[in-house]
C-alpha cells in the first residue's frame, strides 16, 4: 500500500493518537481488533516523514511507533494460559487510549462550534469603569497567579544589580523632559513609550523621562494606557494638558 504523504497531511494531525484514529477510519478497521502489523507499517511511514520535516511533535510520534512495535512483538509470542487466568490482549491499553482521546476530540468539535457562535458578540467594556478611581496608572484586571509568576520572572531577569542612589552627572533634568514630552504631545495625540525609549541612548535619560511621565500623570497632564502586562505604554494628553 502506498501512502500519499504530504507535509500538510501530517500537520493536520494533533498527535500520534489522532493519526491512528485517522488510519483506522480510512481503512475501515475495527478499533477493538486493530490489525497491528498493518497499522504499524502505515504509521511508520508517517513518522519517517515527521522526522524529515523536523516537526516539533516528531518525538511523540516516535514514542508511539515504539509502543506499536512492542505490541506487535508481544502478539507474536505464543500464548501460554495458566489455569483460569485471562490473557490480556496486548492492544487493550492502546485501544483504551484511542477511545478516550476520541471522546475529547469529539468534544473539541463542539467547542469549536461554541467558539464560532460566540465570535460575533462583543462584551461591553466599560469606558470609565470607576469614576472615583484615583490611581491613574494602568490597572490590570483580574490578576491571576500566572501574572504573578510571569511578573516575578520578568523582574528577576531584568534585575542585574541593585540601583544605588548615587548622584550621576546630570545630562538632563526632569523639567526639561516634561517640556520635551509636552512638545511631542502637541504634535502627536499618542506617544509610544517603547518608541520614546528607542530615542535615548543613556539609561539615565530613560529614567528621567520615565519620571517625567509619572510627574505629568500625577498632574493629569497625560494619561497612560496599557492593554496588557508588558505591552507598550501609550501616552496621550490628559485633562490638564495645556495647549500652547
Amino acid at each position, binding site marked *: 500500500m502506498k501512502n500519499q504523504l504530504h507535509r500538510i497531511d501530517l500537520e493536520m494531525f*494533533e*498527535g*500520534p*493518537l*489522532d493519526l491512528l484514529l485517522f488510519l483506522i*477510519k480510512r481503512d*475501515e478497521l475495527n*478499533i477493538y481488533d486493530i490489525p497491528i502489523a498493518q497499522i504499524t507499517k502505515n504509521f511508520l511511514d508517517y513518522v519517517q516523514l515527521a522526522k524529515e520535516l523536523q516537526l516539533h*511533535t516528531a*518525538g*511523540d510520534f516516535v514514542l*508511539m511507533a515504539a509502543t506499536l512495535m512492542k505490541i506487535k512483538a508481544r502478539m507474536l509470542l505464543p500464548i501460554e494460559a495458566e489455569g483460569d487466568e485471562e490473557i490480556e490482549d496486548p492492544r487493550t491499553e492502546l485501544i483504551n*487510549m484511542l*477511545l*478516550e*482521546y*476520541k*471522546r*475529547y*476530540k*469529539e*468534544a*473539541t468539535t*463542539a*467547542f*469549536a462550534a*461554541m*467558539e464560532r*457562535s*460566540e*465570535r*460575533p*458578540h*462583543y*462584551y*461591553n*467594556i*466599560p469606558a470609565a*469603569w*470607576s469614576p472615583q478611581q484615583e490611581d491613574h496608572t494602568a490597572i490590570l*484586571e*483580574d490578576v*491571576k*497567579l*500566572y501574572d504573578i509568576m510571569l511578573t516575578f520572572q520578568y523582574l528577576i531577569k531584568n534585575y542585574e544589580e541593585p540601583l544605588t542612589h548615587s548622584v550621576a552627572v546630570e545630562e538632563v533634568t526632569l523639567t526639561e523632559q516634561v517640556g520635551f514630552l509636552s512638545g511631542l504631545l502637541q504634535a502627536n495625540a499618542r506617544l509610544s513609550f517603547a518608541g520614546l525609549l528607542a530615542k535615548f541612548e543613556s539609561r539615565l535619560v530613560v529614567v528621567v523621562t520615565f519620571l517625567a511621565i509619572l510627574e505629568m500623570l500625577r498632574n493629569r497632564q497625560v494619561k497612560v494606557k496599557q492593554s496588557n502586562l508588558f505591552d507598550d505604554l501609550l501616552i496621550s494628553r490628559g485633562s490638564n494638558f495645556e495647549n500652547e
Partner: protein
Amino acid sequence: MNELKQIVEALLIATPEPLTEARFHACLGENETKLPLAEIVEGLTADYEKSERAYFIKEVAGGYQIVTRAEFEPYIKGLFSKSGKLRLSQAALETLAIVSYKQPVTRNDIESIRGVSSDSSLRTLLDRKLLEIRGREDGPGRALLYRTSIEFLQYFGLNSVKDLPRLREVEDILAEDEEDLI
C-alpha cells in the same frame, strides 16, 4: 423607567465582569429589594428589544452582561487591529476540552490523553486567561493543577461548566461510527 431598572442598567454598563445576584444586592446596600435580579433583567431585555438597541443582556458565567448583537460584528471588527477575536488552534481547543471536563488536572493528565506535549497550548490558554493555575496535586509529584476560568465561560457563552455539551460515552460514538460506514 423605574429606579431599580436604571440601577441594574448602570451596573451592567459599568461592570467589566458578569453581574451576579449577589453582587447586585451588595451594590444596593440599604436600598434592599425583594425583587430578584432575573426579573429586572427581563424588563430591561424587553425595553432593549422594543427600542432596537444594538446590544442585549446575556446570561453568562452565573451573571448578566451586556453584549453587542451579532449583526454588528463586521463594524466592530474594524476597532481591532487583528480583525476581531483570535480563534483558538485545534490543539488549544483539545487541551481546553480536557481541562473543562476533568478539572482540576495536571499537565501530565492532559498529555496522556492527547498523546502529545501540550506546553504551548497551555501557555496560550493561560495567556488568554481561559485557564488558571489553581494549587497543586496532593501526590508525590505535587504537580500544578489547572482549571477553567470565568473568562472561559464568557468566551464560550456558558453560564457554568455544567452547561457544557455532555461528553459522549465511547459506546455512543462507536455506534454512530458504524452507522456511518453502512
